[in-house]
């Protein structure tokens, strides 16, 4: 079974981003970039499927500027076999990415596509579901366990209030939640090997996809500040304040 993993280059999760002074966007100058954490979990899951002998090949794909080849190489160092870079400088919205991925899935005839449930920059949580809809595939979102069972996929999903298990017909799309697995670290020899793994570059045009969006960013701003309150000296004082000042208990 061929597994396709889609990954995204995002701001490192340790970086606290700020809006630009003019509100035109987020200040990303000289900020450390990394593989989106949920995508890292997706790569790990695909590599584990290969190690179990379920997956025959793991193909990693990313769309964006030239720099996102770094993240493809990271995924290759984690164990993916080859990479596809859909190169474009255009601002990509989830629907456009889903269309690009659909074109790649058609070409590659992947049986399983694994993506992170959301990227930690846009926090959209859309691409996997959109890809599944466009490809007419089943989806297992927010997965905490994935088991391949013949022609079906059993996915345990993290839902409000607990866990849900669904059975999906293959081919299917899975999006990862935090507790699906704990990604490995790439070893130095594997990082070196990853540099020699094949990486194809295609363009949206070649895939026949229009990446324009009708959603525009008007402005960005910092969230409303919450002021620090007071320190209380004792539990008694705390209860008194909650009862008589805040009146919440």
């Amino acid at each position, binding site marked *: 079974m061929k597994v396709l993993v889609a990954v995204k280059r995002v701001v490192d999760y340790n970086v606290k981003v700020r809006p630009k002074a003019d509100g035109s966007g987020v200040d990303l100058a000289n900020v450390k970039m990394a593989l989106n954490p949920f995508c890292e979990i997706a790569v790990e899951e695909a590599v584990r499927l290969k190690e179990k002998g379920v997956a025959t090949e793991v193909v990693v794909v990313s769309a964006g500027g030239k720099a996102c080849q770094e993240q493809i190489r990271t995924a290759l160092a984690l164990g993916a076999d080859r990479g596809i870079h859909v190169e474009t400088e255009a601002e990509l919205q989830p629907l456009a990415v889903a269309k690009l991925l659909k074109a790649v899935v058609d070409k590659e005839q992947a049986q399983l596509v694994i993506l992170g449930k959301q990227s930690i920059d846009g926090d959209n949580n859309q691409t996997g579901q959109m890809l599944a809809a466009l490809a007419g595939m089943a989806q297992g979102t927010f997965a*905490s366990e994935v088991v391949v069972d013949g022609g079906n996929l059993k996915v345990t999903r993290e839902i409000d209030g607990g866990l849900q298990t669904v059975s999906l017909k293959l081919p299917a799309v899975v999006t990862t939640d935090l507790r699906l697995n704990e990604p490995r670290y790439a070893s130095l020899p594997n990082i070196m090997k990853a540099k020699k793994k094949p990486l194809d570059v295609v363009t949206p045009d070649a895939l026949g996809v229009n990446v324009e969006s009708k959603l525009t960013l008007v402005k960005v701003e910092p969230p409303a500040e919450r002021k620090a309150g007071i*320190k209380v000296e004792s539990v008694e004082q705390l209860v008194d304040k909650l009862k008589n000042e805040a009146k919440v208990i």
Partner: protein
Amino acid sequence: MAILVVAEHDNKALKGATLNTVAAAKAIGGDIAVLVAGAGCAAVAEAAAKVAGVSKVLVADNAAYANQLAENMGTLVAEVGKGYSHVLAPATTSGKNFMPRVAALLDVAQISEIIAVESADTFKRPIYAGNVIATVKSADAIKVITVRTTGFDAVAAEGGSAAVEAVSGPADAGLSSFVGEELAKSDRPELTSAKIVVSGGRGMQNGDNFEMLYKVADKLGAAVGASRAAVDAGFVPNDMQVGQTGKIVAPDLYIAVGISGAIQHLAGMKDSKVIVAINKDEDAPIFQVADYGLVADLFEAVPALEKLL
């Protein structure tokens, strides 16, 4: 304008998140219809008809929608949604699951987790784990939107008298099937709708110590939550997680116990009306957002708190 709100329910009762979503629809302004898709969900449709501000309830009662599988829901909502200018659903795990399919099938963008309505085509939504608020404008003919429920005060559950109408939708696509569900059983209120939430972090040290929080919660009629650190450490199950990747809550009172206040946790609770932090580290970032901070050993402070309540 005509707005379609997809109801959140479990075939028996209408979930509160629907009321916040109707409130967002009201802020956009227009005729509001609610779609109830399920199996044996007549009682839900009745409840939806009573919601203030709703003018019509559409019921798709079919075994294909029993568990609201995304594949079937996506096709149905896209089909019904064609006649509307806006399609809204709460940004619950259910809404997040099927709504992007609706948007893709309609070939429009989805606007995720809006927290404010600026106008019929312009909305505010948090990005970068809530560190930045983006204002976005959509030129799509149909706006497909998920609503962060804490951003909108719920409309009244009573007071309306909408007409109920049956709609038929596509049959089961046969792509997926429901196997089972493990829902945490609790007598305490649900995290996302509780008026008071008591949460524990890594400082709790183990799952057994959460017993202290349950006792406090029961005296207050509160729900119990946890930080990601406490969930990752295996103290408590993941459905208790409050934070950017867990539940977003905005109760009247949020009591954070042994929680340092990582950005990802703050993103899930900083809209609470009153925040209390109990932590022995006086430099913990949680104190920067707390209305009342108590620097103390939680193992002494929490039992003392319970006694005083």
